[in-house]
């Protein structure tokens, strides 16, 4: 279960990320969902819902949560925790924004 640490990966420009929406990023073999929240913060989680593998990047974003488009599971994009009444979690990645550049720590 231990991932190879690849370190910091440059994803792209902060200004290119759509607000209150997700963005799909393929980093090597990993598929990641990036979200620019209404408060301007960027968060990243694995792009697969623990329920049935729905693509979270396409979900509706509300505050710090995203609703999976498959069956409406609600997931916190900061820590990857699935919200009640459902259970589970997805991997959350550390995001760093410097100047206008967005990095993910893998």
């Amino acid at each position: 279960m231990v991932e190879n640490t690849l370190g910091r990966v440059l994803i792209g420009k902060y200004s290119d990320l759509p607000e209150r929406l997700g963005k799909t990023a393929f980093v090597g073999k990993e598929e990641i969902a990036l979200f620019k929240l209404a408060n301007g913060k960027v968060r990243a989680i694995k792009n697969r819902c623990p329920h049935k593998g729905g693509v979270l990047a396409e979900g509706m974003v509300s505050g710090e949560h995203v609703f999976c488009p498959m069956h409406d599971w609600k997931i916190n994009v900061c820590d990857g925790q699935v919200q009640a009444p459902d259970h589970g979690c997805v991997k959350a990645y550390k995001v760093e924004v410097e100047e206008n550049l967005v990095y993910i720590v893998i």
Partner: protein
Amino acid sequence: MLKRKLILIGNGMAGIRTIEEILKLDPDGFDITVFGSEPHPNYNRIQLSKVLQGDTTVADITLNDWNWYESNNIRLYPGESVINVDTKKQIVYTDKNREEPYDKLIIATGSNPFMLPLPGSDKQGVTAFRDIKDCETMLQYSKKYKKAAVIGGGLLGLEAARGLLNLGMKVDVIHINEYIMDRQLDREAGKLLQKELENQGMNFLLNKQTTEILGKKQVTGLRFKTGEKIAADLVVMAVGIKPNVALAEKSGIPVNRGIVVNDYMETDIPNIFAVGECAEHRGMVYGLVAPLYQQGEALAKRICSVYDEGYKGSVLSSQLKVSGVDVFSTGKIREDENTKAIKMLDDWNGIYKKIMIEQGKIIGAVLFGNTKEGNRLLNLIKNGANIEEYTESNQTEESGASLVAQMTDDEVVCGCNGVTKGNIVSAINNDGLTTVEQVKGCTNASRSCGSCKSLVADILEFTLGDKYSEDHKESICACTTLTRDEVVDEIREKHLTHTREVMNVLGWKNDDGCSKCRPALNYYLGMLNPTEYKDERESRFVNERLHANIQNNGTFSVIPRMYGGVTNADDLRKIADVADKYKVKMIKLTGGQRINLLGVQKQDLPSIWAELGMPSGHGYAKGLRTVKTCVGADFCRFGTQDSVGMGIELEKKFEGLNGPHKIKMAVSACPRNCAESGIKDVGVVGLDGVWELYVGGNAGTDLREGDLFVKVKTKAEVLEWTGAFLQYYRETANYLERTSVWVGRLGIDHVKEKLEDKGFRDELNKRMDITLATVQEPWSETLKDENLVKRLYETVNVPVASK
């Protein structure tokens, strides 16, 4: 602190439920390993019959998928069986030569189907009905063969039989006794059920004992004790289950009928526990989900050293739906010289009730056709109530709420998800819930089969008291207490202009809304102010945000518009070229007479649209989708009117219109109705010199025949009445309310009466025309806007050098 090693043998519902409870109490206390003989993660065995009956899929009945095990750091060895336990050294041994030491061991090996030891029972085509593999066997046989025999007329046998009927097989149900389901039902109810199932196509052979399974390698039939024979290509044995105790016996763990446990689910051997169908508690072995979940909770507390009184046993009741018939039974149901009974039979409505009394106390009950009283009777029996308590309360027409009052907090309301009355009441009180929907969202009660919905409503009524009323105003979602009408009125009065403003001004509990209210508000705002409101893409469901349907694997599909279902060779060529170039996975005709290109990558959508050069068919829209047509007067020998022309006109006029939900239309040119106008939101039927309009029809979830709405003479009138009808629907329906439900709610007479007023029709059409004038073709609009393509359709690709 070192984690203790916990091993679970058996990857089923009871065992995994126990693990879930342990993770709640002590998430980091244990290093957990699970062995399961089946190659699947934990699934809902109760719903296997639904899979067989074609109502759901294996994926949909999975309770804990692979990710759940991984994210909770649980080691799962699927398809691996434990064959021995060394209880002294505390080590388990598997059939794959694995040895695992344990500190705590839970045995949850469930039951095995009981296979009759008949000559020939090892032939091909003989199966049990217990797991996914059995389901798959039955599905395979149904494709090749036509004749099935089910041995056993209990619940499982009947469910298997119903599934095989759905799969197109002829089914004989063989039962050894004189009536079916004799464990749960008395003769009267058994016969009623038999009549109902015979109407559905099952054939029953009662009082028959099977003595031999016939055939060479492959089964060909059955022989009975009487010497009679019947033909069968598939034989399903559903005569019962027995606790799977082989491993416990072999390992020297004391076994009676099941593995013997005390109130804390402890066996006689230190650090070994048993839970579920394999366990015997106070002489009882349980096969229903509610008691097993209660056992799991008690066991989890024990293992995590949380003080608890333990498991005290359950009064059994079965609330079942057999092929659509509600059946309930509990306690003693056989009459003898010591019992008296109250019986009521309403043969006309197919309702039967029997209440068993012994020494003045209620000891059992059977309900058939109407099972509302089930929970209440169960409680009376648990409390050792006298029959007078039941009969007297009957005279005072008890409401559901007072029945709820008698329920104890630990009583399970939702058997599918193991939710108790206590869970529901505290959720209502702590989270201020007011609707069944909210209770479902917060607790999972009524989320699976839905049979406990009315009980959940009763608990709401009981808990909220005066604050609850039957026609309780349903708020649009849990973020607000306001109803749809209140929200729409406020938007109008206060001239609110975007979703965040609505949520802010109207005091939403969650200032960013949720997946229910955001799309609804976005629709209402656009409907009320079509010229100025700018549609919020981030408040749209992915399909409408991207103008393509998302599929189960995250790819998309493209459905170009094809007015009235008419195309031409040039368009077909273009579609074929695009399908080749972008490696489309499947080309499929839709029900609405169009072509669907499936399995497209998101980033390819814009280029595909550009190369097609066709408008979007809005196959994903909450709005006008398609206008289906028959061949009509151009070519058809019977066509009285130009249905194709009428359909194309309708589609061109209303294309791109947003609605509360999807809108499907059809035009047929004679009463044969080849375009199926009777089951569309708006269906037109052309007769000689007249067009009939039907509305509120639906062929989907809410199957409903359209009501005749109006007869008109000209195409212009068809457009006028359709426009007025659709606009009235757009302005008064709840978001996500189809016309079928909306017409049912308002009543067709009301809708007709309103729209007979020419002045009102004109007003509606004026507003409709303003809305239609703002419609933009979404695909070409996207292509014009580079920024939009970048933001919504492009993905980021970062190659990573492997180390």
